[in-house]
C-alpha cells in the first residue's frame, strides 16, 4: 500500500460526498417538480379553486413556480448555499425552521434506538455463538426469524393495542402529553413503545450477522491454540474472536444507519411522533416541495456520509479494500485462464 497524504485522502472523500449530494439534490428537485399536484393548494388551501387566472398567475409568480425548471433549480441552489431553503408552503415558515423543531425528536428516537440495537445485537450474537446448536441458540434463531418478518407498522399497531389501549400502561402517540413538553419522565414514557419497535425490528438482522461472523471466527486455528494454552471458552470469545469481528461489525453498523432511519420514519408516522419522518410523509402528501426536498437532502446526506464512514473504517483496517479493484481483476484473469 502506498501511503497517501491524509489531506488528499480525506479531500477525495469530501469531494465524493459533495458530488453525490449535488446529484441527489438535482434528482430530488426535478422529480418533485415533475410530480402532478398543485403546490398552490398547500399554500393557500381550498381558496385556490376560487382564484381567477390573474390571481393564480400572481401567486405562482410570487412563489417562483412559473419559471423553467433549471432556473428554479439554480435559484433554489443559490439560496440553499446561503442557508435559505425556502419556506414550507404548508407551515408558512422557513423549511429549515420547521425541520429544526422536529429533528431533535427524530435524533432522540433514532439515536437511542440505534445504540440499543447495536449493543443488544452484539450481546445476542455472542450468546448464540457461545451456545451454538444448543437449545438456546436454536430458540433464539427461531424467534429472531419470526420477529424480523413482522412489518414495522403492524408491530407498532399491535403494541399500541396491547400496551396503550388494553392495558393502558404506556402512551401510544405523540412525544409528550399536552402541557407536559418539558417533563423528562413523560417524554421517556412516550419513547418506550416506538423504541421497542425500532429495536425488535432490526435486532435480529444484526445479531444474526454477529452470530455468523463469530461462528466463522471460532473455526480459526488460533482458537485451537488458545484452547491448548488453557484459555477458557469465554476468554477466547471475548478477548480474541470479538476483537476480530469488531471492525466489520462497526462498518456494518455504519451502513445500517439508513435502514434504521427508514424504519424510524414509518414508526413516527404510526405513533404520530413529531419527527421528520412524519413530516416527510405529510409533506409528500401535500406537495410541500421545499420541505420534502430538505428532508430528502438531509436523509440522503446522512446515508452518503455513513457509507463513506463505513468505507473509511474498512480501508483503515484492511488496506486491501482500497485496491479491491485490482484484486477483482486478478480473479477475473485467473478464472479466464
Amino acid at each position, binding site marked *: 500500500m502506498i501511503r497517501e497524504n491524509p489531506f488528499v485522502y480525506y479531500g477525495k472523500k469530501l469531494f465524493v460526498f459533495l458530488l453525490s449530494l449535488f446529484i*441527489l439534490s438535482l434528482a430530488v428537485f426535478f422529480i418533485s417538480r415533475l410530480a*402532478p399536484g398543485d403546490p398552490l393548494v398547500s399554500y393557500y388551501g381550498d381558496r385556490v379553486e376560487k382564484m381567477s387566472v390573474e390571481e393564480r398567475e400572481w401567486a405562482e409568480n410570487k412563489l417562483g413556480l412559473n419559471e423553467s425548471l433549471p432556473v428554479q433549480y439554480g435559484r433554489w441552489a443559490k439560496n440553499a448555499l446561503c442557508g435559505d431553503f425556502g419556506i414550507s408552503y404548508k407551515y408558512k415558515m422557513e423549511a429549515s425552521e420547521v425541520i429544526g423543531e422536529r429533528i431533535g425528536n427524530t435524533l432522540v428516537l433514532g439515536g437511542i434506538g440505534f445504540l440499543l440495537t447495536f449493543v443488544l445485537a452484539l450481546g445476542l450474537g455472542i450468546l448464540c455463538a457461545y451456545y451454538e446448536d444448543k437449545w438456546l441458540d436454536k430458540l433464539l434463531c427461531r424467534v429472531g426469524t419470526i420477529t424480523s418478518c413482522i412489518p414495522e407498522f403492524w408491530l407498532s*399497531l399491535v403494541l399500541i393495542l396491547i400496551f396503550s389501549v388494553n392495558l393502558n400502561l404506556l402512551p401510544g402517540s405523540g412525544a409528550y402529553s399536552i402541557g407536559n413538553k418539558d417533563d423528562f419522565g413523560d417524554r421517556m414514557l412516550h419513547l418506550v413503545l416506538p423504541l421497542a419497535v425500532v429495536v425488535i425490528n432490526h435486532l435480529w438482522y444484526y445479531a444474526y450477522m454477529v452470530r455468523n461472523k463469530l461462528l466463522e471466527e*471460532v473455526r480459526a486455528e488460533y482458537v485451537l491454540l488458545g484452547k491448548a494454552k488453557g484459555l477458557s*471458552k469465554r476468554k477466547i470469545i471475548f478477548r480474541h474472536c470479538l476483537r476480530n469481528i469488531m471492525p466489520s461489525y462497526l462498518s456494518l453498523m455504519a451502513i445500517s444507519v439508513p435502514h434504521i432511519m427508514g424504519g424510524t420514519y414509518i414508526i413516527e408516522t404510526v405513533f404520530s411522533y413529531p419527527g421528520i419522518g412524519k413530516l*416527510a*410523509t405529510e409533506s409528500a402528501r401535500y406537495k410541500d416541495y421545499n420541505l420534502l426536498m430538505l428532508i430528502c437532502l438531509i436523509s440522503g446526506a446522512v446515508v452518503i456520509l455513513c457509507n463513506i464512514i463505513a468505507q473509511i473504517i474498512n480501508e483503515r483496517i484492511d488496506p486491501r479494500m482500497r485496491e479491491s479493484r485490482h484484486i477483482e481483476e486478478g480473479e477475473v484473469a485467473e478464472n479466464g485462464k
Partner: protein
Amino acid sequence: MENKFELVGKRPTVLTESKKRRTLRGKPVISVSFILVLILACSFCELFMPKDPTYMDLYNADAAPNGEFFFGTDAMGRDIFSMIWYGGRISLFIGFFATVISVFIAVIFGSISGLAPKWVDSILMRFTELLLSIPSLLLVILLQAIMGKANVLSISIILGLTGWMSMAKVVRSEVRQIRESEYVIAARCMGAGFWRIVWKHLAPNFVSSIMFMAVMNVRSAIVAESTLSFIGMGLPLEIISWGSLLSLAERSILSGSWWIIVIPGVFLVLTLLCLTNIGNHLRKAVNRKESNL
C-alpha cells in the same frame, strides 16, 4: 460390477427412511405448502367466499368475529374473512410482479455492466450505488407522486423499479467472473447476440445466486406495499389488499376492534415468514466445519 468383487467388511446400509422422505428432508415443506395453498385459495377465492368483499354492510359494521363473519367486519362493514383472500390476491400479485420487474432489470443491467468495458462498468456501478444511497421509502414516495393516483400496476412498477440494485450488483460480479471463459468467447465468435449469451450462457451461472434475493424481493415488495397503503400513500381503500385492509386499523384502535388489526396482520406475517424460510433454504448452505471452541 457388483458381482465381480465382493466387498468384505462393508457396513450393511440400512434404509429406514422411504425415498420420498429423504428427498423432502431439510426442505421447507410447510412453508412451500402454505404459500401454495395461499396462492390457490386467493386465486379461486370466488368459490368459497361467504360474502362479497366489497359490499359494505353498514348494519354489521365493526362486528367481532362470529358465526356469520368468521373474522369479523371492518369499520365499513366489509367481511374480513372474504377480504383476506380477495386482497391477498392483490398483495401476492404485487409481490411477484414487482419481483419479476426487478429481476428483469437486474439481469439486463448486471449483464451489460459485467460485459461492458471497464469505464462503462464503473459508471454503471457508481449509478447503482447512488440509487442505493437514497432511502428507498423516500424514493418510492417520490415516484408514487409522479405516477399520480396509485393502482395495482403502478405500485408494482414502482416497487420493481426501486428494488433491483443489489441484485444487479450480484449479477454483475458473477458475469464479470465468467465473461472470459472459453464457452462465452466461443459463443461470441460464432456470432451469438447479447440476449443469447445472457440467456444460454450467463443466466445458468447466476440463477442460483439470485434466487435467494428474488424470494426476499417478493417479501420486501409485499411489506412495502402494505406499509405504503397503510400510511395512505399506496392503494386506496376501494382496492382491497392486505395493506389497505390494515389502513383502517388506526381508526379501529380507538374502537378497540382488535380483529381488524390482528387477523390480516397474522396472515401477512405468516406469508412473510414462509417466504423467508424458502429464501433461507435457497441460499447456499454453508458447509460448517467442527467448531474449535
